[in-house]
């Protein structure tokens, strides 16, 4: 009996403890600075986005986004602990505070963003994924229209199958779907020549292709059939951290718009310092305006970010560019000036 009483008392004490701590509302931004280390949730299993190199370090686009955050918040892009997470764990890990932020191929959706759903807040999209099509180079197919009356390998019972059907129907083109159980079989069917094209998410197509014997003989078409905007995320309660993350991502895009790169950043800073007329550049690089302080960062956070990772285009080229091991055409991920969708609001 005494044991039972003590258990009940213990539980009561625990819940009281929870209640008091939940009211504590200080931002994680300060916690990260005090800890002098960013805990970043990644996947660790997605080629091109985050994976383990042979020397035991993580690499990829998602990892570089983590580095940009660490450079902006702490001032050192190496002060990061990567936490490999599965899809099931990732939101709990944010809610419990096990990680500071998530940079793990997470699709930005309403129910994840809302307080009635997962209660997260998303930073701007860092990669617009979407369903794509891969064909053999020698087939000389270059767009959806060329695939009329051809057969296409697709995984059955997925939204992928639905999307390809919708795309061809709306273009009123006839085609023959060849359905398989999972992606590996789709790949096998495509390689055996049972279909002219295969379809899946573009990042997956690129990853699958880099495992082919002659990856150069296959191309991913520019057509995108569905929206999978992948964005970093953090706890929706924490406005300060969310603001900082949002503007770090925008700074990467804005730097590319202005042609500021890892190699010319020092020169740009010098130019801006010497020329008081260049007001937008001076604000962007933190010489005037005190923009960084408004989001809880140092005023020159942009300089630190670009120095450590380069601008968005450089990050993309490094991990997903034409010469990388998982090449994905930039397509939608180009700047708005070049026909893509990436655009940064002004740094004012």
């Amino acid at each position, binding site marked *: 009996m005494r044991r039972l009483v003590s258990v009940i008392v213990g539980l009561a004490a625990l819940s009281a403890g929870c209640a008091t701590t939940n009211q*504590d509302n200080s931002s994680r931004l300060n916690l990260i600075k005090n800890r002098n280390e960013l805990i970043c949730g990644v996947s*660790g*299993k997605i*080629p091109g986005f985050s994976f*383990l190199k042979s020397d035991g*370090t993580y690499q990829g686009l998602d990892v570089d986004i983590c580095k940009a955050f660490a450079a902006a918040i702490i001032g050192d892009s190496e002060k990061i*602990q990567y*936490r490999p997470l599965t899809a099931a764990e990732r939101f709990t890990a944010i809610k419990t*505070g096990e990680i500071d932020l998530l940079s793990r191929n997470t699709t930005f959706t309403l129910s994840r963003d809302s307080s009635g759903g997962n209660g997260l807040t998303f930073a701007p999209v860092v990669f617009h994924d979407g369903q794509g099509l891969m064909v053999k180079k020698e087939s000389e197919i270059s767009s959806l229209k060329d695939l009329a009356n051809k057969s296409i390998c697709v995984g059955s019972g997925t939204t992928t199958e639905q999307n390809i059907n919708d795309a061809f129907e709306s273009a009123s083109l006839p085609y023959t779907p060849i359905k398989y159980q999972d992606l590996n079989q789709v790949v096998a069917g495509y390689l055996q020549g049972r279909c002219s094209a295969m379809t899946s998410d573009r990042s997956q197509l690129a990853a699958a292709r880099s495992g082919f014997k002659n990856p150069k003989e296959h191309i991913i078409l520019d057509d995108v059939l569905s929206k999978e905007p992948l964005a970093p995320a953090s706890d929706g309660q924490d406005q300060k951290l969310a603001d900082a993350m949002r503007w770090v991502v925008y700074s990467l895009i804005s730097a590319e718009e202005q042609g500021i790169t890892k190699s010319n950043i020092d020169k740009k800073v010098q130019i801006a310092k010497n020329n008081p007329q260049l007001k937008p550049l001076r604000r962007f690089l933190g010489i005037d305006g005190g923009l960084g302080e408004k989001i809880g960062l140092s005023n020159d956070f942009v300089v630190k970010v670009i120095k450590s990772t380069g601008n968005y285009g450089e990050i993309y080229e490094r991990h997903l560019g034409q010469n990388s091991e998982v090449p994905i055409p930039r397509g939608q991920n180009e700047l708005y000036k070049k026909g893509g969708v990436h655009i940064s609001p002004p740094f004012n």
Partner: protein
Amino acid sequence: MLKLYTISSTISFKNARKTLFSNSFNTIITLLIILFISVACFNTFEWLIFKANWKVVISNLPLYAFGSFPANEQWRPATWIISLLSLSIFTLWGPEWKWLRKNLLIVWVGTIPLGLYLLYGGLGLSPIMSRQWGGLTLTILLTVCSSLLSLPIGIVLALCRQSSLPMVQKLSSIFIDVMRAIPLIAVLFFGQLLIPLFLPVEIEIDRVWRAIFAFTLFVSAYIAEDIRGGLQSIPNTQIEAANSLGLNQYQIIQYILIPQALRIALPALTNQSIGLFQNTSLMAILGLVELLGIGRSILANPEFIGQYIEVYVWLACVYWIVCTIMAVLARHLEQRMTINQANF
């Protein structure tokens, strides 16, 4: 020819001709099976030696062994694994020094604090967070810590279940039955996803320890049942005899019940620990980069995409080797225990 023929062996030449080639139908079947086996063997070896690209294994060996442990500190987990290995060899074939043999159990148990010290650091070594542990080191650590913790808990649970106090008996029965009725993966999900939600924010239990905690809860229920089997096979007359000798409750448990129950339960306990070692691979689904998890991470490296077979064959070999060592050690322990019993 006669020498080959023994009663126990049925596959001698004489028997072979009698059973495998007795008539034409059997001959055809036998030849077909031989053909099948040799084709399978040939293809396997051809793949192993010529077709497989073992670079994915060779260039990542430190990763498989230690995960992303900092490179200049990797001697620490290496020391631990080598000490475990040499201790196994010593236990099996080492010299029969009495004082050492007597303390061998303490040495074995002592490897766990040694391992934790080497991995965590502190006291002269640079501290390393548990999230950098990985690979085989983490798999072994999960196994030894969980089994060391669950053995005493299992013994206590088994004794409680035999207890005459109804409250104690009921509570431990409920715990054991509930744990056995839940799949392991559910307990692990509970440990990884729910425990942090229940705890206040300041108290953060490491995910490695949460995994060990979940494994301990689960395995201790099974160990309790194994040991209860051992306890029940001890005749009541022994307890009565002990009572009449004037031993108290604790002495009876310590000197009479536990040693015998453990000896009887030993084969079952071996099963549990080998099962536990293999079950740690479930943590790969939950994001720990133990042996299987690190294999899956390596496969995401664009350099090695598509080399699933090499990686999984290699992992199977590693699991097989470690499990075999564990089984041989357990058999050795069983033999020694029966020798000790005979000496009584």
